[in-house]
């Protein structure tokens, strides 16, 4: 039982990282129906930016006291801003001109952007794994035989907070309303005086900024990164978004946590589980899509962003 609960904890924290990345996927898909394959690499870029900021601040290990909040806040904001700007730039250069092109064209462009980012990061920091400073002290508490570490709590909490903040942003602000309108019918929204270009740009800004936050958190959580990190994480996060119902914010989080949990449980209870966990994850995905083609929460909400 202890082991089972421990795997639930492992799965939730892994799922938290997936969920943070999946939010960005789902936002972009919701508004322009583009699977932004570069999103996983924007997330890695966030880790690299965070690393550069921490190096600039001279931080190489745990930080304590009030400094901790300052360092974390500064790094996370810098990473979110940089990634947000990168997302806007990608949209401007690679996707905007293709908005009226057949859907396959921007999809291929997205893969191209992904390659470019990976290679830029490889040139920047080399092809080897890079250690990431363990900024946050990591005491762990034992609850009835289950070890929960501070970092795991941070990951899950951040994923939930970001999801709620995003939900509030979309349903309670003017720009959020514009995003929902653009998602429903771009032409009609434009006729109503909504600046579609700005709205899409904001979507990329917010989605990529979330990837920046996820990048920082995963750097701290794993203590290492490399240029290719975003490939696998991006693929899983995309799967999470599809599983939850792509375009649905809450669905992205649900999908992220589900995949994390399935991976952890499959690893524990299937012989040679580490090798088979992906097979289980994608089998579940296939089954869900057979019975609910638009994902777990895809149909329950009429509006998608």
């Amino acid at each position, binding site marked *: 039982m202890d082991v089972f609960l421990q795997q639930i904890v492992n799965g939730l924290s892994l799922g938290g990282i997936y969920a943070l990345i999946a939010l960005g996927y789902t936002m972009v898909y919701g508004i322009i129906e583009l699977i932004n394959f570069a999103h996983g690499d924007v997330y890695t870029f966030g880790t690299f930016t965070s690393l550069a900021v921490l190096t600039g601040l001279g931080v190489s290990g745990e930080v304590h006291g009030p400094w901790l909040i300052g360092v974390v806040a500064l790094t996370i904001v810098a990473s979110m801003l940089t990634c947000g700007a990168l997302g806007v730039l990608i949209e401007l250069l690679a996707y905007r001109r293709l908005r009226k092109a057949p859907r396959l064209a921007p999809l291929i462009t997205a893969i191209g952007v992904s*390659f470019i980012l990976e290679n830029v990061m490889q040139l920047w920091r080399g092809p080897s794994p890079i250690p990431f400073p363990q900024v946050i002290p990591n005491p762990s508490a034992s609850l009835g035989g289950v*070890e929960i570490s501070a970092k795991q709590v941070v990951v899950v909490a951040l994923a939930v907070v970001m999801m709620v903040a995003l939900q509030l942003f979309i349903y309670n602000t003017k720009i959020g309303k514009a995003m929902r309108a653009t998602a429903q019918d771009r032409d009609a929204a434009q006729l109503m005086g909504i600046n579609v270009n700005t709205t899409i740009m904001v979507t990329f800004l917010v989605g990529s900024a979330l990837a920046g936050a996820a990048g920082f958190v995963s750097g701290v959580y*794993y203590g*290492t990164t490399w240029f290719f990190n975003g490939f*696998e994480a991006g693929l899983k996060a995309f799967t999470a978004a599809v599983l939850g119902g792509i375009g649905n914010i809450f669905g992205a989080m649900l999908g992220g946590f589900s995949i994390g949990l399935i991976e952890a449980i499959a690893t*524990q209870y299937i012989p040679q589980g*580490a*090798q088979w*966990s992906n097979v289980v994850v994608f089998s579940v995905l296939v089954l869900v899509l057979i019975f609910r083609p638009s994902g777990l929460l895809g149909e329950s909400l009429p509006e998608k962003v």
Partner: protein
Amino acid sequence: MNRTGGFARCAVLTAVAFLAACSSSPTSTTSSQSSSASATGATIKIGIDMPLSGADAATGIPTRNGSVMAIEETNAKGVPGGFTFVAYDLDDAVQGAHDPAQGAQNVKSFIADPAVLAMVGPFNSSVAQAEIPDTNDAGLAQISPATTNPGLTKGDEAAKLRTSHPDVNNFFRVCTTDDRQGAAGAQFARKLGLKKAFIVDDNETYGKGLADVFETQFKADGGTVLGHEHLTKGQTDYKALLTKAHALAPDMIFYGGTTVTGGALLRKQMGDTGLGAVAFLGGDGISDDEFIKSSGESANGVYYTVAAPETSKLPSATTFVANYKKRWKSDVGPYSANAYAATMIEIAAIEKAAAANGGALPARDAVLKLVAATHGFASPIGTIGFDKNGDTTAPILSVYRIEHAKPVFVEQISLKV
């Protein structure tokens, strides 16, 4: 998915095109230090193929030097029949890294020169794969001091490399193979008193091979294997796997793989899952600086094996190490003694073949037969013989432990084959 593959292929193609363009003029990078020795008889050349420029030069040049030293010592002693040995050394590095196509080209140069009766090299397994079909065709004896891929000598893979004469093996090595590291690791772990192992590998040829051999040997030595799991490529979170391992209470984790395919992350996350104090043992895939950098503090205490002896600690190599320092004014490289031994084996075979041929220049296949029959040959790296595959019968491996972010030599392990 190997995204750098395209670029590498491109570089190889460019190199091939370049070589084709200048193949009319023979490669003239011969820079043998020993060719000036005066001799009354014919010269016999020993081909030496090593990476001598770029990043690989750091290990390639000391290896070449070991081979050249063997030739110089032989000439100084005097060769029966008045022959003089000459080192014919070529660089297989292109644009700073060892290159299989260049290696194959070098071997063609050796084969085209009738004075070349045997060769030493190459340094890298990928280069050997490109060279063996040519040397097999020419019946040229080839001894490598450093290639450790098991497929070069064993099984179907090796048979496929011997394209012209599948039944004649002409490729030998004085180093041992990757898979024997698994056996050495198991022996060492049992010696440390470790009984319950959980095995993890990266599911690649090298890593899985290592882990499978470890499992067999560890069980044979009375240890218990609690589980054997394979990592998925690209995975970065091993906490679920390590929690599973933790529940089985192992006293060691064996890892078959490299730093990048999961070694560093696995070691790091052991600390997060209550396995921080459990022993961690791997092969030379984690013997790089990257492992120490990426796993940080948790690297300390990690053991790993290397498929070569630590020459400076080997009693039989004392004289060689002293002579090497005198001759080259630098420290001996990890494979210098191997190259020295490989060259000495070839020289002995050539001298014997010449004697059998009435003192005349022997044929390559006569030399090859004698090299293949080598047994009980005393060398700085121990008494060497070749088995039917061409592998050494007296493999010596070494174990290192990482302390204060530096590898520290622990001990040599001699395997009985």
